[in-house]
């Protein structure tokens, strides 16, 4: 898929032959009512949300109808994404033939949710390659495959599997700015990782979006830019669910956009927006980090043994600052699979001359044994005082509070107020983020992308007669094939009843947190909702 050229000129698809995905997109949007007109492209100059665009084009829709359509679209998108993900690993070869096949019949206008979903999907991915495959079997293969995928979903986390992560840029709508596409990739593979970093990167990317944005005719910047940004946001959230900080920043930005006087000339509005973003980053993150590091570094004393978990940028800043202030202390970094974020923290600290000890989650007890303080970074602070952070943080905080010696050590969280949220969390299950379970496979094995694909790729070839019969033996060859050479898990996708769970976060109960250091001061965790209100009301 080529990247959509310029998101600024989104809807006026003046290009005669829009690339397949776009067409598919619009087609499905129409599909509930007017599937047959799939080939006519929406040439409406309005650039509102596509839903309203084609709604206006076909016929005026009642709000209820609109809603219904939106729902259908959403369902369709879901399905598409799910299928995409399934095939995604295999560069989406597998599902496509099936859906490509599906895509042909849907001219019957009866199909709704499911129909458009597949219709949309078919042309999107390379249909010409295998689209001509037999129809029915592939469909059922798909269903079975989906069932199989469902089997891989841990039941109690079922609600979190909703949004499948995107694997490639393929299928991005043309509204998505290239800066966002790039950012999406970086978020996807954790190149940009960490709440603050994601927030800053998003804001900077938005700045570029805004700079290249041109208000289309007949609408005002304040009205239209928000929807334009929504496309970017939707795209980003398919790459990786948005962090709380990203959400907060986006909310603030949208609020600011909405507050722009429509009569302001576009150029100056854009300038003021960019300035707003710059100052937002400066105030909420850059300077806030300095303030936090400053006051957290004061908590470090000579002779301290400081335990930290994974790699938090703000903790790093704090420790480096304390080190530069001439304090002598030891740092014990606890790290975890699969991201090993602590490694880079250990490297950075050690290079600056700190005394660093490195161990993994299994050694928490040993690391905490002679610790004097625990410094933790945060992904978010919930309104009930919980610390929502990289999975494993809770174990560290708990160990600090329940040491063998009976002496509790202070647990200090460094967190910008931009990460505060009004959500509450009692456990780590309701709210969480599921990452790709393949990340859990041992690193030196050619990860499932390779391992599972042969299995998936096996599916399309034998579509001849027996579908069910073929399905079962298909996974077998890879089983034997990989067992000898790869990790025993390499083939987990085809091992029934075996599930891998890779959650990203956990919630540390408020009672394990002694202090939250923010740019507004040092607080107990119970003060989070108050500060959050203060900050958001400003």
């Amino acid at each position: 898929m080529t990247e959509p050229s310029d998101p600024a000129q989104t809807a006026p698809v003046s290009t005669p032959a829009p690339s397949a995905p776009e067409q598919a997109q619009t087609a499905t949007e129409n599909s509930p009512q007017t599937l047959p007109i799939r080939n006519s492209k929406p040439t409406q100059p309005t650039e509102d949300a596509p839903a309203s665009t084609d709604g206006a084009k076909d016929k005026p829709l009642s709000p209820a109808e609109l809603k219904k359509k939106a729902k259908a679209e959403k369902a369709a998108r879901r399905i598409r994404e799910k299928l995409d993900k399934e095939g995604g690993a295999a560069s989406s070869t597998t599902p496509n033939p099936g859906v490509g096949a599906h895509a042909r019949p849907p001219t019957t206008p009866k199909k709704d949710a499911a129909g458009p979903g597949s219709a949309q999907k078919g042309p999107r991915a390379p249909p010409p390659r295998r689209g001509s495959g037999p129809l029915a079997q592939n469909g059922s293969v798909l269903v079975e495959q989906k069932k199989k995928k469902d089997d891989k979903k841990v039941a109690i986390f079922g609600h979190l599997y909703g949004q499948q992560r995107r694997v490639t840029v393929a299928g991005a709508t043309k509204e998505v700015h290239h800066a966002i596409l790039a950012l999406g990739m970086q978020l996807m593979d954790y190149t940009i990782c960490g709440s603050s970093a994601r927030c800053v990167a998003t804001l900077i990317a938005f700045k570029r979006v805004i700079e290249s944005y041109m208000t289309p005719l007949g609408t005002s910047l304040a009205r239209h830019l928000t929807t334009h940004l929504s496309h970017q946001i939707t795209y980003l959230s398919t790459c990786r669910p948005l962090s709380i900080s990203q959400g907060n920043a986006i909310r603030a930005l949208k609020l600011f956009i909405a507050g722009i006087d429509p009569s302001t000339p576009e150029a100056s509005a854009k300038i003021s927006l960019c300035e707003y973003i710059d100052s937002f980053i400066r105030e909420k993150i850059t300077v806030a980090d300095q303030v936090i590091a400053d006051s957290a570094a004061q908590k470090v004393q000579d002779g301290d043994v400081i335990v930290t978990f994974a790699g938090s940028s703000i903790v790093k800043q704090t420790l480096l600052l304390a080190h530069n202030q001439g304090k002598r202390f030891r740092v014990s970094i606890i790290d975890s699979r699969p991201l090993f974020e602590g490694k880079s923290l250990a490297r950075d600290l050690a290079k600056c001359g700190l005394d660093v000890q490195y161990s993994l989650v299994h050694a928490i007890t040993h690391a905490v044994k002679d610790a004097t303080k625990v410094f933790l970074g945060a992904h978010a602070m919930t309104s009930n005082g919980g610390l929502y952070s990289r999975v494993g943080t809770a174990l560290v905080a708990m160990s600090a509070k329940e040491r063998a010696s009976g002496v509790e050590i202070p647990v200090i969280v460094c967190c910008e107020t931009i990460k505060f949220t009004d959500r509450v969390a009692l456990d780590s299950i309701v709210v969480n983020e599921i990452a790709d379970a393949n990340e859990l496979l041992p690193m030196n094995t050619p990860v499932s992308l390779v391992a599972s694909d042969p299995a998936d790729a096996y599916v399309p070839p034998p579509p001849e007669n027996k579908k069910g019969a073929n399905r079962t033996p298909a996974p077998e060859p890879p089983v034997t094939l990989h067992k000898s050479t790869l990790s025993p898990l390499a083939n987990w996708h085809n091992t029934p009843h075996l599930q891998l769970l890779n959650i990203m976060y956990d919630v540390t109960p408020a009672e394990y947190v002694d202090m939250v250091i923010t740019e507004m001061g040092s607080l107990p965790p119970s003060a989070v909702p108050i500060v959050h209100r203060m900050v958001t009301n400003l």
Partner: protein
Amino acid sequence: MPSSLALTPGLGSFLKCLKTNPIDTSIETLISLLKRRQIRHSRSCATATAYLLRSVISACRTTDSAKLIERVQSVGRRLMAAQPREMVVGNIVRRVLGLIRDEAEDDRDAEFALSEIGSESQPQTPRAYDDPALPLDRDSPSIRPDDRSSRPPLTSMFSLLSHPEPENSLPSTPGSSSPNGRLPGHGPSKDVRAEVLEGIGEIIDELGQVDDQIAAYALDHIHSNEIILTHTSSTTVQKFLLKAATKRKFTVIHAESYPNNHEATHATVSGSASDDDNLGLEAFQKPLIEHGITVILIPDSAVFAIMSRVNKVILGTHSVLANGGLVAAAGTRVIARAAKVHQTPVVVVSGVYKLSPVYPFDFDSLIEYGDPSKVLPYEEGDLVDLVDVQNPIYDYVPAELVDLYITNIGGHAPSYLYRIVSDHYRKEDISF
């Protein structure tokens, strides 16, 4: 030794070597295996020790129990010195010593009873301590006294094998099998050695069956639709769960115990476990997933997050201490603590042979540190130079974090373990 070179060093190679080589070579072999940690798992160590002691005793051409004791003690000391943290070695040595002492006392008692000499103070101290409690038994049938004192340590394990009711282990039930085994009045000096060898055979049998015996309790502890969390690839736990899986449906959450045991855990979970040396004797076990049990593999870090949904934590262990605490794979303590915080019961499954009469005072001395390159591979050379990497292999888990122990003789509260210790080891052998 040359024969052992053919195999990878381990239990298998040792047992082979034991058959062909002179006894002293075998002792040296085991010592070096222990030192090099080429024989690791508790059960492998215990089995190797038991076989070695059997050879030692059969090679020892004496019927004098004192000499036997001395010999076993000296071998035992060397083994223990080779790997002090492998506590099962000491446990097995103590069990064997106890056997010899019991046999010796049987003989002596028999003699006393026959000659009607009531000199209670003459025999070894524990008997004197025991005797005043049962003066009536003392003079009646000649067999009685040895039932009282020697049965619990000697035969309790054996009689359990045949009918595993926990009560049988209690010293108060001199089982029906008491008179037949050894005819005390009969040629007293002749078969101390034979009896001891037989006893060691029973210990070896016990080691072979212990997991199945423990598994027999599984249905008492696992109900339907339970969510069970476990850790490491312990065979005892796997068998326990497998046994329950034949009758009930539940979900297992398996923490992968990275970096020391994750490969074995992955293999266990996915059912591609290749028999390591300690399992050589066992039939291939079907993995849980083939019984339709959903197994969820999680990284260790996710334990706290998921603990709120877990009904029960079932842990294997490296060794159990007399105070009810245990030494288990690193990470166990955090899991047990997280379970405590969530009010989730923690069940430890362990054979009695892992129960050590050691009272821990210096916890750090119990912990063994492993290969740091598993934590930070040497590919990261620059980092390895700069940071201090730690890879503890064991955790000490205090007794208050454990709710229940299940051994091959039943379920016990941690506070009861001292009693089992005193049933299984003679006081004079605790520090030999």
